[in-house]
């Protein structure tokens, strides 16, 4: 399952560790939520980066205290039709101002790329090999957006009022043009 970041297929440097398996030294790891919450203090002291896979039916407020040291949060789409993680993503990015990698996992398909991107995801475990190269195009499918969201693009309401003003991002994230 290719990992796409910044429009390119990249190596996944994170290792998924399930439940109680010992953590490999010096390696970025992705842990389940229960383990993160149980071992937070030790994990925060690790030298190598730590990430969490957060289920789509748990409140982000529970995760919030750890967002200042976690390097990666992976959210889950059990099927692409289950849109709970879109809300989680926006809360993580916009309310809690998480600056680390926000990764979409589960059933991640091309036709949802732009929604995912706009909701604040910047990494995508793409379900189909074929879809991965299409990412860069998929996020350019639209140039007009009605809503403000985590990608910082100026929504139409504001753009109409300030056609001459540059569409500077709202929260400092890079724009994909």
């Amino acid at each position: 399952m290719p990992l796409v970041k910044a429009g390119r297929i990249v190596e996944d440097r994170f290792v998924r560790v399930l439940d109680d398996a010992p953590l490999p030294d010096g390696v970025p790891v992705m842990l389940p939520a229960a383990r993160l919450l149980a071992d937070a203090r030790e994990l925060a002291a690790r030298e190598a980066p730590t990430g969490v896979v957060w289920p789509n039916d748990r409140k982000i407020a529970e995760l919030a205290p750890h967002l200042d040291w976690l390097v990666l949060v992976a959210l889950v789409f059990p099927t692409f039709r289950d849109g709970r993680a879109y809300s989680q993503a926006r809360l993580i990015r916009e309310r809690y101002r998480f600056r680390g990698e926000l990764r979409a996992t589960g059933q991640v398909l091309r036709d949802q790329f732009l929604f995912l991107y706009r909701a604040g995801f910047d990494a995508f475990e793409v379900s189909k090999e074929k879809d991965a190269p299409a990412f860069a195009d998929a996020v350019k499918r639209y140039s007009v957006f009605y809503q403000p969201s985590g990608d910082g693009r100026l929504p139409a309401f504001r753009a109409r009022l300030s056609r001459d003003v540059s569409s500077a991002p709202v929260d400092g994230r890079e724009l994909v043009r």
Partner: protein
Amino acid sequence: MYLYDDFDRTLVAERVREFRDQVGRRLSGELTEEEFKPLRLMNGVYLQLHAYMLRIAIPYGTLSSDQLRTLAHVARRYDRGYGHFTTRQNVQFNWIKLAELPDAMADLARAGLHGMQTSGNCVRNITTDQWAGVAPDEIEDARVWAELLRQHLTLHPEFSFLPRKFKIALTAAAHDRAAVKVHDIGLRLHRNGAGESGFEVIVGGGLGRTPFIGKVIKPFLGKRDLLSYVEAIMRVYNQYGRRDNIYKARMKILVHEIGVEKFAREVEEEWQSIRDGALTLEDAVVAGIAGRFRYPDYATLADDPPELAAARADARFRRWLGNSVANHRVAGHAIVTLSLKPVGGPPGDATAAQMDAIADLADRYSHGEIRVGHEQNLVLPHVAQRDLPTLWRALDTLGVATPNIGLVSDIIACPGLDYCSLANARSIPVAEEITRRFRDLDLAHGLGRLHINISGCINACGHHHIGHIGILGVEKNGEEFYQVTIGGRAGEDAELGKILGPAVPYDDVAGVVEDIAAAYLELRERPDEIFIDTVGRLGVEPFKERVYAAR
């Protein structure tokens, strides 16, 4: 009506391009049906019994004459020469080919029409009172707020994969013609004690398998807060609505299961984090959208001009005038309803020829504007009273002047088993037979206001729960049977109908309606006590006795 600007046009064009790509990938097999289905639903494309069906949004029921001509063109070029107007102010074409859909959508996009979000688990067409902007009893034009919401909720990245469909309706009049109490969110624009206008927010209404009347969670929401508060509601629903069972996934179930107080608290808590932020509707933003609504330059005219007085001598005209023409907020003008309920014909349909002719009449007599009502009739909203006699003759020739608006033969019906793959039973021929039994206009007028709603299955697209008489198609041993309810109401005093008795077979439905009508004539206190009030006064029993006496 709202005029698209570059942003709106670009978005719709980009959507067509995206869909063309998706159709191509489906036809080549790159996308499976499972992957494609939610995508086509989000563009209003259903697969029905005989063919694909395309549902086009008519935002808040407002159409320009050019748009109506474009619908006629699509009916002619891509379909079988007609379209069907729905209970949510949309229009449906029943015979479209998948391979031709992108071209049809491109043609529609040029007129600012689209099928975005008319299906799927996203926010559907936002509906209002079809008399918005011209009704004497409204406090302001709700369509401005409907447009602000429409834009905000179109291709919203967070709310495009909800647990289930989501329906919003607005009203700004004392008399709720938009049925806001049976929507996921109902918004009632009204004035508070200080004379400011704002929204009463009603949530968790809906029909279908488990009907609910919505409940108020915020008696007065300031207009600036409309988007942020709706966003809070939707975020709560997106996160907590059920995902395990499609029959329990609507927001009405969530509100019912956790209780309206808890729901209101969750919304309030979420809202406190986002109010006064980027979603606050500043005056400039509202003015920008309101400014794109064009209102006619009405001529200064007096009420009851001589042309009208003279024409009243014609009894047929008089009957139509009394039935299909309503008061307008501007002196010398009128709101004209066009009946799409011909005797013996399918309710809510119009041929391409009719659409073209009505578009021309709209140009001549209604400042180029038409409305679509959720009663499945059309409206010419800006007619000068002096033009009524001439207009009537033209409408009569077109077959859209049957003076049955609001009467027993003005039936609201879903397409039913003749078209829809979800249906248990047919609804159109049932409606047609009922109109034939009540073709006598004296009889129909004698019965007075009487709303019949027919749904071919429990999904209730015909809104049978809120019909004065509701008819629901069910299946019994492979045969079509119908459950009849009475006492439903749609407006500000919304109520669900009560079952009259055991379900009856297809051949007997019209007879049951005749017997209900006869019972009403016998039981009413005075001729001006309308049917629904007689039911309210006496309950179901006296009707049940008479209808089931011989069954």
